């Protein structure tokens, strides 16, 4: 995962929602890269901007949301300012997407085979007959038993887990190099979650597909991701290799997040919890957005907003590490 020629590069991305009461800044100065074949986990509370980042990358921000500043580059080519039709050709073909709820992601009126075939014939120079053949292959690959018989089934004839497998096949069938997976297991039974994650992981490795895995499940991140970005109130609080972030979190927010996961290997009287709630977009405090909840906040935190700074093996947006010398606490 060297820095040379990342597959996806997001630079200083800012997403705004103009409303009657003024402009809300949903994402502010978000920068990160994903290399070919790499899995970047994105964690954070609801509303931190994880899904918004994914939507911005695939160019499907809900209006009136819009990219106000920054750029998104795929293979060094800007994709954030493309016309709808040009971006459409990239969606599915270069960047696949997986959504949260498999029960609502598939069109109920079309067979899964038709939905797979139309995706492939849209992006690949193949005949409908060939697309159908490949569709069966994909269903088989994502672990649907008797794929050749199930190809003409409708989504409602599958269980939730099976439907998410179909969604994965749909995201991968035009062989994109990047998958944006937005909470792919959140809506599933716990027993199914592990299967789906394992499937995603093995398929991504097999096809060399990079993945941006949005979730609030640290367990999924720890198991799947190479690097992880922790988001808070529309910004990246900390980003780095998954081992470092999980084991030696730098940013006080990440520390709090990790502290709230029950450890399995020892008993704890009480889980650490982060007091308060994430601020609403309309009321993000001055300085570091985390300062009202931060146990280590000091004067500067309420004044200036910290940028991502190198801190040990990771980068953290925290004034505690501004002086570079005092790494790790």
């Amino acid at each position: 995962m060297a820095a040379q020629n990342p597959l996806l590069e997001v630079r200083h991305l800012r997403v705004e929602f103009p409303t009657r009461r003024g402009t809300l800044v949903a994402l502010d100065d978000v920068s990160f890269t994903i290399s070919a074949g790499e899995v970047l986990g994105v964690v954070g509370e609801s509303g931190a901007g994880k899904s918004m980042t994914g939507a911005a990358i695939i160019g499907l921000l809900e209006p009136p949301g819009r990219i106000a500043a920054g750029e998104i580059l795929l293979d060094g080519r800007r994709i954030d300012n493309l016309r709808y039709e040009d971006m459409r050709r990239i969606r599915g073909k270069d960047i696949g997407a997986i959504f949260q709820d498999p029960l609502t992601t598939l069109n109920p009126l079309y067979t899964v085979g038709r939905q797979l075939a139309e995706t492939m014939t849209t992006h690949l120079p193949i005949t409908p007959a060939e697309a159908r053949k490949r569709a069966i292959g994909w269903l088989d690959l994502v672990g649907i038993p008797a794929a050749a018989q199930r190809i003409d089934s409708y989504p409602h004839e599958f269980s939730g887990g099976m439907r998410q497998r179909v969604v994965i096949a749909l995201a991968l069938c035009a062989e994109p190099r990047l998958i944006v997976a937005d909470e792919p297991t959140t809506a599933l039974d716990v027993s199914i979650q592990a299967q789906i994650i394992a499937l995603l992981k093995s398929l991504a490795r097999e096809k060399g597909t990079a993945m941006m895995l949005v979730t609030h499940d640290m367990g999924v991140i720890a198991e799947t991701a190479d690097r992880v970005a922790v988001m808070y109130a529309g910004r990246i609080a900390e980003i780095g290799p998954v081992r470092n972030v999980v084991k030696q979190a730098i940013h006080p927010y990440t520390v709090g997040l990790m502290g709230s996961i029950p450890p399995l290997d020892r008993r704890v009287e009480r889980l650490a919890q982060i007091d308060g709630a994430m601020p609403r977009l309309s009321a993000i405090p001055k300085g570091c957005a985390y300062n009202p909840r931060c146990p280590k906040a000091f004067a500067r935190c309420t004044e200036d907003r910290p940028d991502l700074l190198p801190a040990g093996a990771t980068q953290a947006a925290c004034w505690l590490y501004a002086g570079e010398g005092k790494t790790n606490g």
Partner: protein
Amino acid sequence: MPAALDLEFSPLFAFIISRILQALPVMLTVALISFAMFAYVGDPVAIMLGQDFTEAQRQALVQDLGLDQPFWVQFGTFIGNAIQGEFGLSYRLSRPVSDLIAERAPATLELAFCAAAVALLIGVPMGVYTGLYRHSWLSRFFLTFSLIGVSLPVFLIGILLILVFAVWLGVLPSFGRGDTVKLGWWSTGFLTWTGIKALVLPSITLGLFQLTLIMRLVRAEMLEVLRTDYIKFARARGLPNRAVHFGHALKNTLVPVITIVGLQLGAIIAFAIVTETVFQWPGMGLLFIQSVNQADIPVMAAYLLLISALFVTINLIVDLLYYAVDPRLRLGRGQGAH
């Protein structure tokens, strides 16, 4: 796979049979109510005899019409004849009711067909357009225009159209069907130029309300469907807009649209009365109004029975269309798979 075919058809067949069986009591009730109501709304004997008559003449006529029989016997006779397609003689015209209706039905059905075509072929695309481009000035114009269509009464629209196109511009006829051509018992206005011209104004008048209704319904459903995850996912898969809008989105709006269109089609045929009166259209509606004036019970009862049969049939077709559109309703299928 013959076994699969069996599975697929037998529940559908059973469904149709059960629907027809359910329809029978409905139609019997309609027949009873209409027959009973009309038995008390006027005295056909007095109307038919006019001013001068003897008691003997009156008695003879009452016996002739079977009005001396008890109510249930009259009703039973009526139903018995109706099943054989006989609705008796019109009191007013002294001709078989079935002949009168067969004469008038083509006019009404052709008018209803054109009105429905106007409503669908213009209403659905306008609904899709206003759903997709909510903020364009054309959408705003369509919506304003649809308010006019919804709020103006039918007779006023008809009269305004006559004023503009028949009186001022003189390009279209203001009444009647124009020349018709006989095809067997069916008389059609589609084959002559005057017949087609005569259809224009009444069709617009009758279809305008339905058009605006369908447009608003399709628009509302499109807005709803465009927000769903499967449409977002279809976009995320990079499908072309045409496929997303007219394939994925429009098809998902169809179930409610079919329901309303079916009911409205019934309404177009049943309540063409006003339009037919305004344009002196020689259809069933006009026949009905004239029969009401003269307490012509057999005609009125037959007409209402026919309309109820029509609604029942349309409902059955609507239910069958649900089957065709939405696979989740095809219960017999896919059960065998695991």
